């Protein structure tokens, strides 16, 4: 294998900066194109008694209104377990649910018409919160429990115990490009759907089912998304299905682009969690037992809640060896929007649980939390079995964390901060260094497969199609690099096409950080088949042994002569050699028995650690991150610029989740933060003042593409250090004598409440303070 060429910029970078990279809403519209809008329910739970569409139909420009009863096929866009009606049937299960859809000659007419549809709903009691769902036993699917050793006995025998309840908020994806699809009817009732989706195969399937057609009759295409983050894994389907249904009904092209308020009230988000934990440990801070109940607000339907809570369970150990562990995951059914995939997919919530508990252990013992973390890390060759009984063989965290401890100057800064805090009553600083260990592979084993199609043309340029989708993460750039390096070609000789279901079928979602791992291997497999044919041809044609044919950056060496790639493929074509092929990849060595909660669900782990320093204003609760040092493991980076961007962006997105972004439902179950006016994602001002990011220089131990590692999700969890740094700063307001309760997001309001709570507790008798 040739060395990868120097990393090129994002394959669409030129187009992006020129404003010439079209998203679906930028594409030319067919002359017959209609625009669609959705009418939504305004109550969280109730019986749908009447829908009056006459006022909508009376508006000029309105061509069609679609209700559930008009759907010719299956009125469901759920990914796994049925229960996500495309349009509501008779029961409303969340405020914002789609009830009707309108197609009109202009977007303005469609939106006006949708707002005039009269929806009568007989309200019923709504379960809005996780607490209420737990109290009344409202679950989507059965709870699962993972056990190792005997946690109850371990807790009973532990010299010291702590317990607590932690609440973590959800997160809206806030992809800059909202959900959008354009459906284009083709001959014989076939349908082409352009969708901003991470999962074109699922769009193909669900549209076909909704239309009552075969999968062969529907094609889904996605060139690029304006951000995804998990929010377009399943949540793109409803928009695509509605566009296709209206296109079927009218026989015309239909475009549906959700405006931001509709997007935020209609589509699912990161799961918020209630976490009840107990931890047993000794005076040295060594953990012996961990028992945790992870309860997620799943919302009104199953969607991806099962695997999300599974992944939370898989990460409730984070980086730590637990002799006795009991990890339970609960999937609460509520009358709120159905929560879904979001970068990390439950992993961040599981990690937050144990990182928070370890912070509490350290405070109870008066130790530095870093020392407690280091004392409990998984080992090498011993203390290396997870609560799901997978042995960890590639652990690098002890070395990585020590390296970050040094490079971030942790110990000196810890002392300097203590001195600084002693001198500053109204501003306080905090510091935290936390690790992340993230399991790579879909935990549903069958999803770990991918296909690719490579075409070598006779001018020596190459086109690649694969099952993954480009949402900004640079997947297409990396795939082009992989194929270019296989043939030793310049990057610009290779083009990655839009992802289309008629090129590569039966694909998995671009998710679980696995896009490059899976599709890169599949593309390399296809390229390798072509390369072997070219070598066989060259050996015979030029009468040289096959091992005398080498693909180099200077061209193809065939014995003593040198050809350009174009010359070789041109001659191979004349000799009737097949110059295109497909490739396939299935991740080896993984399996999981969900009944017993045991197995090897992950092919390998991605590691990282971050040290964050926070500053809080004691009087306003505002916080800032003064400095963040990130040390992250990407294996052999295929494209360092892209990987750095993933790490920086992931950290900031995690920082938003844990410190600023607040989804607030009123008691009636209506989301009140449904636009950027009230829902605040990080801006450029929220960047750490001093932001240092470095790679851990070590190849992946597992046989991945170019020995790289998945990088999409893991860095998000580095932001846990920022949240715990804020907690440390809050603790400084009470001279670290008490440990604050700080739920996420740690908004100024929560920081102030935590400070006030410390003041209140400080006045109590010593035994009542904890």
């Amino acid at each position, binding site marked *: 294998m040739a060395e990868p060429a120097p990393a090129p910029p994002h394959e669409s970078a030129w187009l992006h900066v020129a404003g010439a990279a079209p998203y679906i809403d930028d594409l030319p519209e067919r002359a017959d194109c209609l625009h669609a809008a959705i009418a939504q329910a305004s109550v969280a739970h109730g019986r749908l008694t009447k829908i009056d569409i006459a006022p909508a139909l009376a508006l000029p420009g309105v061509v069609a209104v679609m209700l559930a009863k008009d759907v010719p096929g299956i009125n469901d866009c759920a990914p796994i377990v049925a229960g996500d009606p495309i349009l509501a049937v008779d029961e409303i299960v969340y405020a914002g649910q789609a009830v009707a859809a309108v197609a009109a000659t202009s977007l303005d007419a469609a939106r006006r018409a949708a707002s005039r549809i009269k929806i009568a709903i007989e309200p019923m009691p709504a379960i809005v919160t996780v607490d209420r769902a737990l109290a009344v036993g409202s679950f989507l699917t059965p709870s699962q429990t993972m056990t190792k050793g005997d946690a109850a006995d371990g807790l009973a025998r532990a010299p010291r115990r702590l317990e607590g309840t932690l609440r973590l908020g959800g997160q809206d994806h806030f*992809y800059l490009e909202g959900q959008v699809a354009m459906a284009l009817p083709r001959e014989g009732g076939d349908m082409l759907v352009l969708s901003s989706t991470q999962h074109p195969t699922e769009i193909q399937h669900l549209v076909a089912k909704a239309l009552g057609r075969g999968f062969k009759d529907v094609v889904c295409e996605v060139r690029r998304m*304006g951000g995804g983050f998990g929010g377009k894994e399943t949540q793109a389907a409803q928009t695509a299905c509605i566009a296709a249904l209206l296109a079927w009904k009218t026989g015309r092209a239909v475009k549906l682009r959700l405006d931001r308020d509709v997007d935020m009230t209609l589509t699912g988000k990161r799961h918020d969690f209630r976490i009840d934990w107990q931890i047993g440990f000794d005076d040295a801070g060594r953990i012996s037992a961990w028992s945790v109940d992870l309860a997620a607000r799943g919302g009104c339907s199953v969607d991806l809640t099962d695997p999300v809570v599974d992944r939370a369970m898989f990460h409730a150990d984070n980086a730590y060896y637990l002799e006795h562990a009991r990890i339970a995951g609960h999937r609460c059914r509520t009358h709120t929007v159905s929560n879904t995939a979001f970068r990390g997919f439950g992993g961040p919530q599981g990690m937050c649980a144990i990182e928070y508990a370890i912070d509490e252990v350290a405070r109870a013992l008066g130790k530095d939390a870093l020392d407690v973390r280091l004392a409990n890390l998984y080992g090498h060759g011993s203390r290396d079995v997870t609560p799901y009984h997978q042995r960890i063989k590639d652990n690098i965290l002890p070395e990585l964390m020590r390296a970050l401890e040094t490079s971030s100057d942790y110990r000196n800064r810890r002392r300097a901060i203590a001195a600084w805090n002693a001198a500053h009553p109204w501003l306080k600083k905090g510091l935290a260094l936390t690790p992340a260990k993230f399991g790579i592979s879909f935990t549903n084993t069958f999803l770990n497969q991918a296909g690719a199609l490579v075409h070598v043309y006779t001018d020596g340029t190459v086109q690649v199609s694969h099952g993954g989708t480009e949402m900004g993460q640079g997947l297409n750039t990396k795939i082009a690099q992989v194929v270019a390096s296989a043939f030793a070609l310049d990057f610009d000789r290779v083009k990655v096409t839009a992802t289309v279901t008629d090129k590569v079928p039966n694909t998995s979602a671009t998710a679980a950080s696995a896009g490059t791992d899976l599709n890169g291997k599949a593309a390399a497999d296809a390229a390798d088949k072509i390369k072997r044919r070219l070598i066989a041809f060259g050996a015979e044609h030029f009468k040289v042994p096959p091992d005398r044919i080498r693909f180099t950056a200077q061209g193809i060496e065939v014995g003593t002569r040198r050809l350009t790639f174009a010359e070789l493929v041109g001659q191979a074509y004349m000799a009737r050699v097949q110059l295109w092929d497909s490739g396939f990849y299935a991740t080896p060595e993984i399996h999981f028995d969900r009944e017993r909660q045991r197995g090897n669900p992950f092919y390998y782990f991605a590691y990282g650690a971050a040290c964050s320093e926070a500053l809080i204003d004691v009087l306003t609760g505002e916080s800032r991150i003064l400095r963040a040092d990130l040390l992250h493991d990407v294996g052999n980076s295929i494209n360092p610029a892209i990987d750095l961007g993933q790490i920086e962006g992931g950290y900031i997105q995690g920082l938003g989740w844990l410190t600023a972004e607040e989804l607030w439902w009123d008691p009636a179950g209506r989301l009140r933060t449904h*636009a950027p006016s009230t829902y605040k994602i990080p801006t450029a001002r929220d960047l750490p003042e001093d932001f240092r990011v470095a790679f851990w220089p070590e190849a992946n131990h597992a046989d991945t593409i170019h020995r790289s590692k998945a990088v999409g999700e893991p860095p998000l969890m580095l932001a846990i250090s920022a949240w715990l740094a804020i907690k440390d700063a809050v603790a400084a307001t009470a001279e670290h004598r008490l440990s604050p309760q700080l739920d996420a997001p740690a908004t100024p309001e929560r920081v102030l409440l935590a400070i006030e709570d410390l003041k209140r507790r400080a006045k109590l008798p010593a035994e009542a303070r904890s």
Partner: protein
Amino acid sequence: MTITVNLTVNGQKVTRQVEARTLLVQLLREHLDLTGTHVGCDTSQCGACVVQVDGVSAKACTLLAAQCEGANVLTIEGLAKDGKLHPMQEAFREHHGLQCGFCTPGMVMSALDIVRRHPSPDEATIRKELEGNLCRCTGYHNIVKAVAAGAKAMRG
């Protein structure tokens, strides 16, 4: 009600009959096919629709087309000349100041306005001035670097 608007867009004089309520961003995207100016939030907060009106940056979703009568509008499509990127565009490409690219046109246009007001902006100034442009992918780090590099390149 339909009105006539006359303005100059990327150096070209244009006249269009539009409904009076038409926003500048709609005029650009739907009437002039200049779709590089994006709509991200519909409510003047995300900055994906930033253009220049008479040399000053403006969010095109918060202006009526009628307010731009006689104005000189510059959009992202008007920056590159003869297939050669503007130095600020080149800086965003070179410094990986983009991922999904959706916010990029607005970022580049805002960056030009920052340079207009602060020819040699330091990092703190860039961070502060970019507050009206949201990016969900990059974490802004490379965008800030790109703006600084673009400003330097523009100074020559």
